[in-house]
C-alpha cells in the first residue's frame, strides 16, 4: 500500500481542490496536500534506504533509488511550487489577469501534474510509464496556456504538438524494445515490466534495441529538452505561470530523463554501455552548445532560465554518458541540485514579473534596492546555477568533470574540454544579463518592497536545500545516489 498511498495523496488533493469552490480554502488544501506528500516521501525514502527497492501490486509499481530521487525532487519542488502558487496566483488574481473560477482548475491541474509525474516514477511497466509521461503533457497544456492570451496559446500549441510528436516517437521506442525482447520473454509478454526486462536484457535482439533506444532518446529527449528537440521549452517555460515553469524546469525534465535512464540501463545491458552513452553524450553536448548563444544574447529572463535548463539537462546527459561511477553519482546529484536551483530562479523570475509586469530584462533595474530579498536570493541562485563554488551545482559539476577526465578516453576528454569552454561562455552570458538587472540604479517610479510573503517563504524553503547541499550531503542521500550509480551501471 505504500506506493499507492503515495499516488493517492496528490490525486485526492487535486479532487479536493476542484470540488471546493472557495479558492481561499483550496489554496491551503493544495499546500497541505503537497506538504503531506513531502513528509510521506521522506518516509518512503527511509524505507528505500533500508530495503533498496520496493514492489507493489504484483510488480506493477516498483520504486528503487532512482525513482525515489526523482520522486523526492517532485515532492520538494512540488511543495515549494504549491506554496509559491498561493502568493503568485493571489497577486495575479488581484491584478485581474484571469477570472477567479479558473483558479480551481489551476490547483486541480497542478496536482494532477504532480500525480502524473509521481506515476512516471513509480511505474514499473514501461508502457505505463509512457502513458504517464504523455499524461504530464496533457495535464500541463492548459497550465501553459493558463492566461489564455495570444502568446500563451501559441506556447501551449507548440508545447502539445512538439511534445506529443516526441512522445509518440518514444512509444515507438517502447514497442521496439518490446519487440526486441520477444525472443527471450516470449511472444505474449503480458508485462512490459522494467525489472523483468532488465533481468534478461543481455539476450535482446541488439539491432532492434539500437533502433529502440534511438527512438527513446529522441522521443523522451523532446520532453526532457535535449537539443535539437528542445524548441518547445523556452516558449512554454516563459509563458507558463512561474510556479509551473519551476515545476517544468525542475521536475518535468527530470521525469523524462528518468524515462531515458531506464532504457539506458536496459540498452547498456544489451548492447554494452558504449552505444547509449555515446548517444547521451552527443545529445548532451549539443544541448549545451545550443543553449549558449541564447544565454549570451537574451532579452527575456524567463527564456534565459529556460535555455539554462536545456544546458543543465545536457550536462546531466553528458554526465550519464561519461558513464563512470562518480560521473553518474555527480549527474544524479546534479539533477537534484539543478531542480532546486532552477526552481528557485524561476521563483525569483516570478517575483520580478509580479513587480515589474515585464519579462524584458532591459526594463528591470536595481532589483537589489527595490526587492532586496529577491535580489539576494537571485544572486545566490545565479551563482548556484552557473556552478560557482561553494554552491551545490559546483560540487556536482566538479565530480562529473573530474570523473570524465580520469576516464582516460580521448573522446570523453575532448567532450569534457569543450564542455568546460561552454560552461565559461554560459557563465558570461548569465552574469552579463542578470547582474545588469540586479545592480543598477532603480527607476524612480518603482515601489520598494516584496510582493508576497508566500513567495518569499517558498524561495527560502528551496534556498535551504541549495545551501545545505553545497556543504553537506545527508548520508541517506549519499546512499541513494550511490545506489543509483549502481543501478545505472548494472553493478
Amino acid at each position, binding site marked *: 500500500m505504500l506506493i499507492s498511498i503515495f499516488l493517492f495523496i496528490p490525486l485526492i488533493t487535486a479532487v479536493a481542490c476542484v470540488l471546493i469552490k472557495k479558492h481561499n480554502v483550496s489554496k491551503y488544501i493544495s499546500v497541505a496536500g503537497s506538504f503531506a506528500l513531502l513528509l510521506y516521501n521522506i518516509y518512503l525514502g527511509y524505507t528505500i534506504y533500508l530495503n533498496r527497492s520496493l514492489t507493489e501490486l504484483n510488480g506493477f509499481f516498483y520504486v528503487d533509488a532512482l525513482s525515489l530521487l526523482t520522486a523526492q525532487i517532485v515532492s520538494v519542488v512540488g511543495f515549494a511550487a504549491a506554496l509559491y502558487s498561493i502568493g503568485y496566483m493571489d497577486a495575479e488574481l488581484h491584478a485581474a489577469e484571469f477570472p477567479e473560477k479558473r483558479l480551481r482548475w489551476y490547483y486541480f491541474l497542478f496536482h494532477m501534474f504532480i500525480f502524473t509525474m509521481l506515476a512516471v516514477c513509480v511505474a514499473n511497466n514501461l508502457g505505463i510509464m509512457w502513458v504517464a509521461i504523455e499524461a504530464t503533457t496533457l495535464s500541463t497544456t492548459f497550465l501553459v496556456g493558463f492566461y489564455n492570451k495570444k502568446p500563451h496559446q501559441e506556447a501551449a500549441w507548440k508545447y502539445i504538438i512538439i511534445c506529443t510528436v516526441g512522445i509518440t516517437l518514444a512509444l515507438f521506442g517502447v514497442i521496439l524494445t518490446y519487440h526486441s525482447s520477444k525472443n527471450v520473454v516470449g511472444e505474449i509478454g503480458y508485462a512490459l515490466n522494467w525489472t523483468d526486462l532488465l533481468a534478461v536484457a543481455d539476450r535482446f535482439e541488439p539491432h532492434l534495441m539500437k533502433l529502440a533506444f534511438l527512438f527513446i532518446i529522441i522521443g523522451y529527449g523532446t520532453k526532457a529538452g535535449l537539443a535539437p*528537440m528542445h524548441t518547445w521549452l*523556452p516558449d512554454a517555460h516563459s509563458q507558463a505561470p512561474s510556479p509551473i515553469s519551476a515545476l517544468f524546469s525542475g521536475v518535468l525534465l527530470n521525469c523524462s530523463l528518468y524515462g531515458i535512464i531506464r532504457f539506458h540501463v536496459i540498452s547498456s545491458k544489451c548492447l554494452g554501455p558504449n552505444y547509449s552513452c555515446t548517444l547521451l553524450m552527443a545529445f548532451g553536448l549539443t544541448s549545451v552548445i545550443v543553449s549558449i548563444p541564447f544565454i*549570451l544574447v537574451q532579452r527575456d529572463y524567463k527564456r534565459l532560465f529556460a535555455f539554462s535548463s536545456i544546458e543543465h539537462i545536457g550536462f546531466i546527459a553528458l554526465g550519464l554518458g561519461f558513464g563512470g561511477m562518480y560521473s553518474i553519482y555527480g549527474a544524479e546529484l546534479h539533477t537534484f541540485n539543478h531542480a532546486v536551483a532552477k526552481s528557485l530562479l524561476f521563483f525569483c523570475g516570478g517575483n520580478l514579473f509580479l513587480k515589474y509586469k515585464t519579462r524584458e530584462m532591459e526594463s528591470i533595474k536595481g532589483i537589489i534596492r527595490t526587492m532586496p530579498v529577491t535580489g539576494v536570493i537571485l544572486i545566490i541562485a545565479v551563482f548556484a546555477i552557473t556552478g560557482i563554488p561553494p554552491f551545490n551545482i559546483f*560540487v556536482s559539476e566538479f565530480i562529473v568533470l573530474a570523473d570524465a577526465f580520469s576516464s582516460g578516453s580521448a573522446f570523453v576528454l575532448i567532450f569534457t574540454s569543450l564542455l568546460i569552454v561552454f560552461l565559461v561562455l554560459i557563465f558570461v552570458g548569465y*552574469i552579463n544579463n542578470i547582474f545588469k538587472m540586479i*545592480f543598477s540604479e532603480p527607476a524612480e517610479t518603482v515601489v520598494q518592497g516584496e510582493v508576497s510573503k508566500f513567495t518569499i517563504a517558498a524561495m527560502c524553503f528551496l534556498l535551504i536545500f541549495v545551501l545545505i547541499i553545497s556543504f553537506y550531503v545527508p548520508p541517506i542521500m549519499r546512499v541513494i545516489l550511490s545506489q543509483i550509480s549502481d543501478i545505472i551501471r548494472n553493478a
Partner: protein
Amino acid sequence: MIEHLFVLSITLFALGALFALCFYKWQMLGNYLSFILAAIASCVNIAIAISVLFNHTAERFNFLLYHAIITYSFLIDSLSAIFILAISVISLIASVYSLGYTKLYVNKRDMRFFGFHFNLFLLAMILVVTANNALVFMIVWELMTIVSFFLVIFEYENPFHRKAGFVYLFMSYICAVFISVAFFIMFSYVKTWTFDFDSFRYAGDIMPAISKNIVFFLVLIGFGIKAGIFPLHLWLPLAHPAAPSNVSMVMSGVMIKTAIYGFIRFYFEFLTPSPPWWGIIILIIGASSAILGILYALLEKDIKTLLAYSSVENIGIILIGIGLSMIFKSYNLMALSSLAMIAGLYHVLNHAVFKSLLFGCAGNIYYSTHTKNIEQLGGLIKRLQVTAPLFLVAVLSISAIPPLNGFVSEWLIFQSLLNGFTIPSVIVKVLTAICGATVALTGALVATCFVKAFGISFLAMPRSEYAQHAREVPVIMYVSMGLLAGLCIFMGLFPVKIMTTINHVNTELLGVNIAHTITSYDWLQTKTLQTNFSEISLKSVTVFGLMFFAITVGAITLINPGFTKKIYKTWTCGISPEPRFGYTATAFSKPFRIIFSNLYRPRREIETTYTVPKYFVKSIVYIAEITPIFEKYFYAPLSRYVLSISNKVRWIHTGSVHIYLVYIFITLIISMLVIGW
C-alpha cells in the same frame, strides 16, 4: 591547540560576518563589531602563523562534515604559515583602518553587506592558503572571488564599478576553470576520490611529461589571471580602483598573493621535478609583467589605478624570483634556488606591506578630498600632515629606495639573477642578465612613477576645490597606516630575521637550509645580510646616514650660525604663482609617452577655441589617451566575435512550429541513417 585557535578564528570571522548582517538600524555598530572581530581573528591567525613557523610543525585539521565526497581538510605547513602571516597582518590593519574609513558611507548606503563580505573575504583568504583538498580549495577560492566581487561593486550605482566587477568576475571564473582543469588532469593520474592534496604531492612523479606541461600552462593561466600577469591583468586595474580603499588594500596587498601561493604549491610540490623551460617561461612572464605593468602605471592619473598597475609590476618581480628558483631547482642548484625563493617570498611580504600602505593612504586622500584623480590634488602635504610622510615612506619603499624594505627584496632579486651565471646553459645566463636589466629599468620607472604620484598629489599648490579643503582623516586611519609604515622600516632594517623565517619555509619546501649563508655578523651592533655573492647592511647604512646628517648639520650651523630663511613666493617669471603653473601628471610622464609611443599608441586631440579676433585663445581642450593594446586587439575582438556568432545563431529559433518539427525529423532521419551505417 592550534586547531582550536584555527576554529576560533573561523568562528570569529563568521560571527563578525553575521553581526554585520544582523544590525539593521545600527548598521555602523554592526560593522564596527564585525571589524573588531575580524581584527581579533586576525590576531589569532598571526599567533597561529608564528607558532607554526617557529615550531616547524605542520598542522592538519580534518573537519568531518558530510560532504558529497570529501572531508574538509586543512593543512598549515610553513608555506601556508608565511602566507597566513602576510594575510593576517594586512587583515588586522585593514580591519582597524575600516573602523575609520567606513565613516565615509555612514547614512549614505546600506552597509550591512559590507561587513559581511569583508569578514568572509578575510576568512576565505586564510582558508585558501590552508586548504588541503582540491575541492575545498576551489570552494574557498571562489568564495574569496565572490565576496571580493561584491566588495568591488559595493558602489554599484557607478557604471564603471559595475563593469569592473563584471570583468573581475568573468576573469576569475576563467581562472577557476583553469585551475579546476589542472586539478582534474592531475587527479586523472592519482585517482584518489578524496581529492586530497596529499595525493597530488606525488603526482609529478607519475604523470607523463605532456600532461605535466599541460597542467603547467593551465596553472600558469589560472593563477596568472588572479595574480594579474600580463596580458591577463585585465581585471586588476579595473577592480582595485573600484573597490573601497580598505578592500583594495586587502585585494592588492594579499589577495593576489594567494595566486603566488598557488604557483608555489603547484610548481614546487605537485609538479616536481620540472624542466628548466618552465622556470624560463615564468621568468620571462615575470619580467614582462614587471616592465609593462609599470609602463602603464606611469601614465595613470587615477591614483588607485596607478597602484593597481603597480601591483602587476610587483607580481612580475615576485614571479622573477619564483621563476629563478624553479630554474635553479631544475638544474639542481638547491642553495641558489632557495635564495631566489627567499627573494620572491620576501617581495611577497614587502609588497603586501607597502601596497596596503599605499592603498590606505590613497583611501585617506579619497576620504578627505573625494577624488582619486591626482591632477585635481596638490598641496596635500600641508593639509594631510600625517598621511603625507606615511605615503612618502610607502613611495620610497615601493621604489626600492634604501634603507626601506623594498630595497631588500630588490637586492635579493638582483643577487639571485646575478647568480644565474652558475647555470650551465648560455641562453639562461644571458636571459638572467637581461632580466637584471629589466628589473633595473623597472626600478627606475617605479621611482619616476611614484615621484609623480607623490609629487603631483601632495606637493605644489592645490589644483581644485577638493584639495583646497582637504582635512586630515580620523586618527584610527593614520595610526593603522603608521603601523604599516613602521613595518616598512622594520623589514628594511632587520631583514635577517625575516629571511631566516622564509628559510624555514624553504627547508621544508626545497629540502635545503641556507641559514649559514645568511648569517648574522656583528659590528656596530649591526647584522648584515649575506649571501654567497655579496653582503649589505641597511642598518649600518642608516647609522652612517644619521651620523653624516648630524655632522653636516653641525658643520653647516658652525659656518653660518645666524642663518635665516625668507619665505617668499615661487619665482614664476614675474607673474604671481597660480596652481595652473605647476607641473601636471600628464606633463610629468609625457617624455615616456613619447619614448614608448610604440607601446602606448597615444592618441591626442587639441581643440583650441578663439575669441573673436583670432589672436587670443579662449580655451584649449587637450585630450590625450593611450590605447590599451591587449584590450583593444585581443579581448574586444574576441568578445565581439562571440557575440556576433551568437546573434547569427539565434535565428534557429524562428518561432515556427514546423521548423521545430523539422529539427526533430532531421535528427531522427540522420540518426537512423548513421545507426544503419
